[in-house]
């Protein structure tokens, strides 16, 4: 009996019990749908986050921060010592940038960033917001990050001491087009100096030179941020009364792995291993591995429903086998081989698995899009600005097909085997 005949025969058997087949298929649909929807959403989310991170990171730049551990640290200090002062007393100094630049011909520039929490106040504009103040060299910073560009006003390469550039949401906190700050406005900048007792608010009056365009994404304190206020590096040094900086951004001539490794090692050696050098790729790979774990976990949970579907397939097949014992006897009496009987039963499970997988993939894709729409609409809170574009990779589609059909077939193996092993003489006697 050839494959087409086997499939046709299996299909005629399924058609006879439509409701039962539909319910069995539904089990597979739900399982596959859950897996596909979860993967589509989480992969969409991963892409959203990694895109937003990329906006704040430049591929050919390295982040240098003090390491929290004095022993050789491979970037473990990331995040913890961000913007803070290392307990060991080790610091990066602003005047080290030129020496760092001269470490390798592959280094284009080294940029020091001083970062403090502060407030921006303008009585005339009724503005009083907490912000992050960044002291940067405007020229180098705009070369490193193309998003450091004014939408209103200008970003001067040779700023006056009182010049500031503000992020879009500093000027337009509600993102509704109502601008609080315009180029030429005078505002007061404040920060709480806790190095003296009692702590005092230091302040100075600054003049807004430019308002940045919306950058979006998550601010991790490296690239331009919508809630950042940028002041010249020298002003920051005197305002915050410090020679040290919180991080250095080292821009490279290229983003080859070899260059990144070479320069990273040179910088670590220069600082005697007391710094962590983080490449954007390293951050991306951490993100990817975190998401892989989350996805594995989600798919694992969803797979349980598919397991339940598999058991129901097995159950139905055993019932079907008992009902069709006589039919199997007839087929065998007509000369059908045991192997063919096995194939017929497996073909039924393949048909159910395939239909379930296809409908499950379509349903899962639909569910993912509905979920994304619900998230974007803000019905569940979150301001409605959280956009995820669900993603369905060919791997997921292919995997879901294989998984759906695979589970059906595996759970049909035992009933199919039992059917094939029936003795014709006994099967024919079955009422």
């Amino acid at each position, binding site marked *: *009996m*050839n494959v087409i*005949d086997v499939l046709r*025969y299996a299909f*005629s*058997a399924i*058609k*006879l019990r439509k409701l039962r087949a539909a319910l069995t298929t539904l089990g597979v649909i739900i399982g596959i749908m859950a897996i596909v929807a979860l993967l589509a959403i989480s992969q969409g989310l991963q892409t959203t986050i990694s895109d937003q991170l990329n906006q704040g990171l430049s591929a050919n730049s390295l982040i240098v921060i003090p390491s929290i551990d004095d022993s050789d640290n491979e970037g473990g200090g990331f995040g913890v010592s961000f913007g803070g002062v290392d307990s060991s007393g080790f610091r990066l100094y602003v005047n080290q940038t030129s020496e760092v630049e001269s470490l390798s011909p592959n280094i284009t520039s080294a940029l020091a960033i001083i970062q403090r929490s502060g407030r921006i106040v303008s009585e005339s504009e009724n503005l009083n917001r907490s912000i992050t103040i960044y002291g940067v060299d405007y020229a180098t910073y705009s070369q490193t990050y193309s998003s450091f560009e004014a939408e209103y006003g200008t970003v001067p390469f040779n700023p006056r001491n009182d010049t500031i550039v503000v992020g879009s949401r500093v000027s337009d906190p509600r993102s509704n087009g109502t601008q609080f700050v315009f180029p030429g406005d005078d505002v007061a900048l404040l920060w709480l100096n806790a190095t003296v007792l009692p702590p005092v608010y230091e302040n100075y009056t600054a003049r807004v030179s430019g308002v940045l365009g919306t950058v979006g994404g998550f601010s991790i304190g490296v690239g331009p941020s919508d809630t950042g206020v940028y002041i010249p590096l020298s002003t920051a040094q005197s305002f915050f009364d410090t020679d040290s900086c919180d991080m250095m951004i080292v821009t490279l001539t290229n983003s080859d792995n070899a260059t990144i490794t070479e320069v990273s090692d040179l910088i670590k050696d220069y600082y005697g291993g007391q710094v962590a050098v983080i490449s954007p790729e390293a951050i991306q790979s951490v993100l990817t591995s975190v998401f892989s774990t989350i996805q594995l976990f989600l798919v694992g949970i969803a797979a349980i429903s598919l397991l339940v579907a598999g058991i129901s397939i097995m159950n139905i097949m055993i019932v079907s086998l008992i009902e069709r014992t*006589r*039919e199997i*006897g*007839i*087929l*065998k*009496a*007509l*000369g*059908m*081989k*045991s*192997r*063919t009987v096995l194939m017929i039963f497996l073909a039924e499970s393949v048909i159910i698995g395939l239909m379930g997988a296809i409908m499950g993939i379509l349903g899962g894709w639909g569910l993912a899009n509905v979920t994304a729409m619900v998230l974007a609409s803000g019905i569940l809170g979150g301001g409605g600005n959280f956009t995820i574009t669900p993603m369905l990779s060919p791997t997921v589609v292919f995997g879901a097909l294989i998984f759906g059909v695979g589970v059906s077939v595996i759970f049909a193996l035992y009933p199919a085997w039992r059917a094939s092993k029936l*003795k*014709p*003489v006994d099967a*024919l006697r079955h009422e």
Partner: protein
Amino acid sequence: MSTIVEAIDLRKTYMLGKIPVEALRGINLKVDSGDFISILGPSGSGKSTLLNLIGALDKPTSGTLRVGGVNVGRLNDNRLSEVRLKIGFVFQFFNLIPRLTAKANVELAMSISNMSVAERSRRAAGLLNVVGLKDRMHHKPAELSGGQQQRVAIARALANKPKFLLLDEPTGNVDSKTALEVMSLIHKLNKENGVSIIMVTHDQKLAREARRTVHMVDGEIESDMVN
């Protein structure tokens, strides 16, 4: 004339719970090609067991059974199905597949032997014509009378050009008028088409219509005579 079935000291013992039941106790039988024999006996005489063995549906406990020259007692499951393919079995309860039409039932048997689709269709129509069901070939078994179903079963049994037909009480489940029709069809197949017939029955009158009658009692052949 060649021998199509040959049994030598054929025995079959069943286990009924823990009690062995000797269904066949040393059967010696030879059937030649073109023959028409009926196996007659009361229920429990072992005639159906013998038929199942000849039909390769079951294996003998001991003794030799050659079907078409092949010793079926030594064959594995797979080879037994190949033997079955060349035997036309007709059952008392028709055993048609209910969801398939008469034609599809006949074609199913041919699909098992990998006959081409076109050949199947042509041959199934031809066979149903021979058994007089040309007009009913697209009906499902439930839409056919008992006699018509039995004729579909006979057409199906002939599907793969079998060496012989095995009939198990072919008229046991139809009325007497239909029984006559079925019997005349069997006679016709034997005489005109040269199909060998082995028929099991407990009806003396029917048995006498065969060329040869084998009488079985308690798992043994009591008499074997030409009518």
